[in-house]
């Protein structure tokens, strides 16, 4: 229980810290902020665990795990899993086009949204859709694709990610042999 308690505290600090850091961060690689927050939380947990008493001064004796190693690993595992959920939720809540529609509809009150308006929210009228404005520069900077003339070319790292992605899609039966037959 000590591990879980410390993990809960570490996660609370992680969530507050990443929220504050994101307000100050000016780039568009937010994953670095999340990973740094997780590393700091994990380190804090690992440092706090051996230097605090087994009952943390308030845990009942009946709730203590006798195997310290198991308690430590369990807390760290739970911290990692909860962090992963938080990370995914943060990206989904802030960047997902689906969530964007729900947030927009909430702001509109009783007014609904047409398909054309939903498309306009994602920059359909712009030369480069919002979903590409965010992704293409990152893929180029990461060495996954390159821009040659008027076209983009897949590079070996991108090919490996594509192969892994295609494998995972086959596992869940979401693979598509024809381009565009299943939406992104």
């Amino acid at each position: 229980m000590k591990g879980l308690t410390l993990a809960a505290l570490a996660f609370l600090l992680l969530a507050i810290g990443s929220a504050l850091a994101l307000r100050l961060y000016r780039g568009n690689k937010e994953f670095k902020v999340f990973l740094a927050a997780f590393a700091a939380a994990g380190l804090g947990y690992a440092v706090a665990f051996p230097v605090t008493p087994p009952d943390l001064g308030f845990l009942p004796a009946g709730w203590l795990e006798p195997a310290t190693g198991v308690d430590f690993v369990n807390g760290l595992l739970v911290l990692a899993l909860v962090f992963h959920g938080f990370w995914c939720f943060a990206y989904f809540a802030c960047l997902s086009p689906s969530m964007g529609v729900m947030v927009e509809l909430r702001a509109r009150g009783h007014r609904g949204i047409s398909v054309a308006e939903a498309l306009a929210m994602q920059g359909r009228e712009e030369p480069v859709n919002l979903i590409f404005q965010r992704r293409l520069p990152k893929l180029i900077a990461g060495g996954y694709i390159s821009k040659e003339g008027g076209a983009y070319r897949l590079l070996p790292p991108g090919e490996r990610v594509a192969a892994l992605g295609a494998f995972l899609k086959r596992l869940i039966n979401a693979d598509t042999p024809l381009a565009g037959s299943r939406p992104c």
Partner: protein
Amino acid sequence: MLKGMVLAWVLVWAWALLQGIVFQLRAPEKAFASMVTWFAPIPVAYVVLHRLTPADLGILPERFVGGPTALSLLNGLALLILLFLTGVLFYYHADRSITVRLLIEMARAPQQRMSLAEMQAVCGVEVLMHDRLRTMAMNGFLEERDGVYHLAPKGRVGGLAGAIARRALAMKAL
């Protein structure tokens, strides 16, 4: 506590295997509902196994055995649910990632090259939004009336959660 952790890991892998077979046999329209349905008996199986099996599961070293049984049971149950949710998220990583989809389309394109127009045709906002609106309506987040989408009660909760998260986290679309 380790007994509960081991049972949770074994059962979540058993569920993942079963779910993989279900997806292979027939890809469901409502993937999340399918995953919840097939996972539903697993926590029950976990509690039954935790009560019926010996404290060391016949394999655990003695130094890892002991401690409060209720803590082991509850901790394992919480871990089981967290592992399930992580599995669900991995499903969505594989199924919904726009970036991965784009790279797959490029890998399949002639000479692995695509123009921006070709990318937007197969993976652009038109394709994406039509699918997302349809999926949200199918899953009860939106209601379509006369070609206009409105928030359903479930969507209102989602919209509220999204609005709070966007305010708290301040991540930019660009």
